[in-house]
């Protein structure tokens, strides 16, 4: 049986995929990824931080399709296929976060400002182990994120 593990602890693939962040109690500022020792808003260096789940939907700020393989540590894909990186603006958090485009989506359909939703992709496979990463999938006309 295949073991499926998230590539980083602040991405939770199940029951529905979410990115974990932190939020300052005093300023309301969000911090992502949640790996810093303290809040980074200089207006409140000592504020307490709570673990939060970031919005699962956002709008495309920009995107690009890469036509050359990235160097390690990005997992090599054999055969190489162009891969797309999407920058997504989260309205409530007022931040932009990058992510790979979900499998099977034609990047030719992407538009700046279009709505996308968090999904799960396989970053790397070794033996019976799959490493999972967050991806962005366009929200369909029916308003659902797809598969």
């Amino acid at each position, binding site marked *: 049986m295949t073991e499926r593990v998230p*590539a980083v602890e602040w991405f939770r693939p199940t029951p529905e995929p979410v990115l974990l962040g932190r939020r300052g109690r005093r300023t309301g500022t969000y911090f992502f990824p949640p790996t810093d020792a303290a809040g980074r808003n200089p207006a409140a260096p000592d504020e307490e931080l709570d673990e939060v789940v970031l919005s699962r939907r956002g709008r495309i700020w920009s995107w690009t399709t890469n036509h050359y393989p990235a160097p390690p540590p990005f997992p090599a894909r054999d055969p190489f296929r162009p891969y797309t990186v999407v920058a997504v603006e989260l309205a409530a958090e007022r931040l932009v976060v990058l992510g790979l485009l979900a499998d099977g989506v034609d990047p030719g359909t992407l538009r700046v400002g279009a709505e996308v939703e968090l999904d799960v992709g396989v970053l790397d496979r070794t033996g019976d182990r799959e490493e999972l990463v967050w991806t962005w999938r366009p929200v369909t006309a029916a308003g659902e994120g797809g598969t």
Partner: protein
Amino acid sequence: MSSDDVVVAGVGMHPWGKWGRPFVTYGLIAARAALADAGLEWRDVQLVVGGETVRNGYPGYVAGATFAQALGWQGAPVASVYAACASGAAALGVARAHLLAGLVDVALVVGADTTPKGFLAPSPGERGDDSDWLRFRLLGATNPTYFALYARRRMACWGATPHDFALVKAKNSRHGVHNPHARYRREITPEEVAASPVVAEPLRLLDICATSDGAAAVVLTSGSFAAARGIAPTVRVAAVSTVTPTFPNPVIEMPNFATDSAVGADGTPVPFRDAIARAAYDEAGLGPEDLSVAEVYDLSTALELDWYEHLGLCEPGGAERLLHDGATALGGRIPVNPSGGLACFGEAVPAQALAQVCELTWQLRGTAGARQVEGARVGLAVNQGLFGHGSCVILRR
């Protein structure tokens, strides 16, 4: 004492290319050229500041001491500065601070690099707490990925086209033809850009700067030393900005894979690139209307257009028109990258900001030959280093 009292006494470069020699050799040649240009001896130098590159996690590899040893130990203190692509300006800032403090009268600033082929990549090893490692591991987000995100955004917000981007390359290539230090000295047509392979849509190979070997060096002196030694104080340092961003920076920047959150911010967030230039203008007491010439960091063709706006050369969204009007070409109102820019040089990271200063110095002296901007009096050089390093230098006659 005003900052105008720091004099650019000499500049020198080793040509950019892929020469396959050690960076120390390039730095030595550039340093000797700058000293000769200043009419000074190596033994006159009282401080050496080296711009560092970082390879395999070992920053000491390129250091002020390396150059001081290569020139022949003469006891001068050294400093070594790492600020990624902004290293040269940061090194210049350290040298200038020593001069302004009256600690030294002559400082030599050197940046040199030998670059590997292909994408710049993070050091080996697993580092789950390092955003530079994570952006490659999780996303394959190379540097051109970021350049392409900005370019696409420019297309969506302002209606820019890949042809506009190609025109930037064509302009800079026309400038670089006349530069003996440039690596690429051939005029490139927009059609050639359009026919080059796609790297990261919408950018093609000829939209994106290469990585090069090269070196640049600058000799700074105090005004009093220049007067005593008969060095003409033609070119003076009016400002050096090495600012970091202010929180929250609303633009996605290498090597981060998320921006700061603007929730809870005081006022409107200021994009980092605007702040870099603003700090330099404030120090110099000058504005964009005072500039005769600018060297800007065209890591990509599209990014040069962004910089026009960050520098205040035009209003947001006005860069394409400025380009089409010929304002930023030689002979225009505000020529940008008369050296040919990164489009003709490729990037030699710790040397690049100093190479910009070399070009401005020649422009302000009126010795830039076929690249000369007529009557140049004020020049600005700007760039940005990975990890939040600002770099902006203003020189004046």
